């Protein structure tokens, strides 16, 4: 009995430790004080000023950029990753298949900072001017392997004959892909998309190296710059809260989907 209470207590203590920073931000997003740590009474003013814009034009554009980049990168990498997964899955030679799988996992394990620096060097050496396009390309590059990983289990679970069955019933290879394979792997594609989207939103290391100096900002680079100028803009508190809740919701959706798939 005592042991159980201790174990539970330890768990809650650990969770409190892990989540206290974000909890503090969330709590102080509901007050007006300029400095974090001063409680000047409950208020939603920071939320309304965040959305009324005006003063914080650069913050709003950073938010817009972030979500636009995330959306484009997640869409493209979902397409690329799904097609790649189908290709890898159908490779005949088990040796080259495992090599390709390993190659796919390297970018995932590679530290972001290395990915960022190498992409930066790549763009520079090809003389590509850095800006919106390079950030999108970089995000597609590091998101695609995750999509491959989330689509692959669906393919493995699929009855290997259904593609042939579609051909047999008169579908061209492309029709079979569209009408049979894509519906089958769609859950994996959606999970992959959500994963890519969240990864893209919170990326800093890769973004800072590929964003260039044309004044383009994403949320992460904006916050970084803002913090370096001394003191965080108070509106970042409600913003962080919103992003945290959004990501939390997305993660819950992913997990629920995974659970449902397991049950099937």
């Amino acid at each position, binding site marked *: 009995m005592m042991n159980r209470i201790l174990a539970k207590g330890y768990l809650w203590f650990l969770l409190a430790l892990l989540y206290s920073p974000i909890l503090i931000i969330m709590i102080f997003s509901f007050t007006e004080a300029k400095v974090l740590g001063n409680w000047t009474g409950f208020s939603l003013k920071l939320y309304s000023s965040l959305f009324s814009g005006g003063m914080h034009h650069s913050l709003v554009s950073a938010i817009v950029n972030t979500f636009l980049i995330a959306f484009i990168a997640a869409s493209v990498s979902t397409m690329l990753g799904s097609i790649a997964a189908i290709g890898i899955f159908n490779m005949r030679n088990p040796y080259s298949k495992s090599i390709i799988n390993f190659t796919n996992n390297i970018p995932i394990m590679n530290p972001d900072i290395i990915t960022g620096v190498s992409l930066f060097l790549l763009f520079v050496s090809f003389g590509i001017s850095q800006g919106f396009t390079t950030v999108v390309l970089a995000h597609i590059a590091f998101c695609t392997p995750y999509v491959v990983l989330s689509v692959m289990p669906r393919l493995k679970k699929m009855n290997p004959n*259904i593609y*042939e*069955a579609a051909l047999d019933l008169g579908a061209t290879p492309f029709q079979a892909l569209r009408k049979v394979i894509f*519906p089958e792997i769609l859950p994996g594609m959606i999970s992959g998309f959500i994963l890519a989207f969240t990864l893209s939103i919170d990326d800093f290391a890769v973004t800072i190296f590929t964003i260039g100096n044309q004044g383009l900002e994403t949320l992460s680079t904006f916050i970084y710059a803002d913090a370096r100028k001394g003191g965080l803009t108070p509106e970042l508190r409600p913003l962080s809260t919103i992003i945290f809740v959004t990501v939390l919701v997305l993660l819950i959706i992913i997990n629920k989907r995974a659970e449902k798939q397991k049950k099937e």
Partner: protein
Amino acid sequence: MQKSNYIIEVQNVSKHFGDKIALDNINLNVKKGEFVTILGPSGCGKTTLLRLIAGFQTTSEGQIKISGNEITQTPPHLRPVNTVFQKYALFPHLNVFDNIAFGLKLKKTPEPVIEKKVKSALKMVGMTDYEYRDVDSLSGGQQQRVAIARAIVNEPEVLLLDEPLAALDLKMRKDMQMELKEMHQKLGITFVYVTHDQEEALTLSDTIVVMSEGRIQQIGTPMDIYNEPINSFVADFIGESNILNGTMVKDEKVAFAGHEFDCVDKGFGENVPVDVVIRPEDIYIFDPQDAAQLNGVVTSCIFKGVHFEMLVQTDQGYELMVQDYHSFEAGRRVGLLVKPFDIHVMKKERTCNTFEGEMIDANHVEFLGEKFECLPQDGIESGDKVNVEVDFKNVILQDNEEDGVLSGDVNFILYKGNHYHLTVGTDYGEDIYVDTNDVWDNGDCVGITISPEHIRINKL
């Protein structure tokens, strides 16, 4: 151009996967409306042959025609055939109706026609009112019915079935067999059916094609295949049988199991070694009396439902399987009799192992990719190409692969009444045949040795 009356013509078709030969020069003609079963043990190439006809794989050599049109390179979606897969392969995201309508929708069939055809296909397979069910909610048998409906709704010229009943339980399988046969008669389309279940093949087919190791062994009606198997493989694979070594003494006289029998076969020559097949139900068993051709003791008696299955050890040392409606309990002395027309005599494919080899030096000869010690040979020089013969009984198998000169896997075992005849696939690729009294299992890895005095060498 002359139109042939065969719906499927498979001509000199071979298929290789890397070094492995899956199909070796297959020739097969199927008549319109026939129910053809391709029968063989797993790995014999039967599914590969079906997949070549369906177009999921392409031939390495040879050509395939359907209704006289060459379709060897035609992709599957343009072939006038439809397939029923072993694991159903229904589309899980579509309901029963949409699964069946899949092919019709691709052909842009008008909606009301689709509705009508799907309904009648469902009726054909006994699944009326299941249109809007989720396919995952159906039992295995129901799923297979939907898969059949999905194929026949397209009115193909040929329906290919790849072990469609293998995943079902026995009772369901029996019911479905009858339904398939009825369906075949009603639809009048050609069925090509792949199975490893010989009983299923005998029940369903107009024609059976028996395959083994990528080759067609025999093509015939179920009656032909059962009563007149062409070789010991077919005899062993189809039904229960006693297969014994015998000698054709002269026309209509064959000696085996230590007795000379009258038979109805002729034209083999005199004193020619043959294989003899006797079905267990063709042996008469009774209390010892003068009419008996063989005498022996019952060693086991098992009740099989309709009949009793007994093993009889004859006084000459042969074990025979006998089936009879009357039981003779173990330990009882019995007499056995076989009528002349129940004895089936088959030409032996080979009477000893023959290999091509090369003399290395006076005491060594190379064959099967290895060096074997042999007795000194007169008149044969080193480097000469030679023909090597080894009797079945002189090949020695060892448990430990390393103990042999070369190693191999046991891949076919035939009980011959008083010994086993094994086919061992050597790692070199060629088969070696072995007679032994030891019990081996299919798939056993063995070492192979041959003592020098048992290697006969002839100069080529």
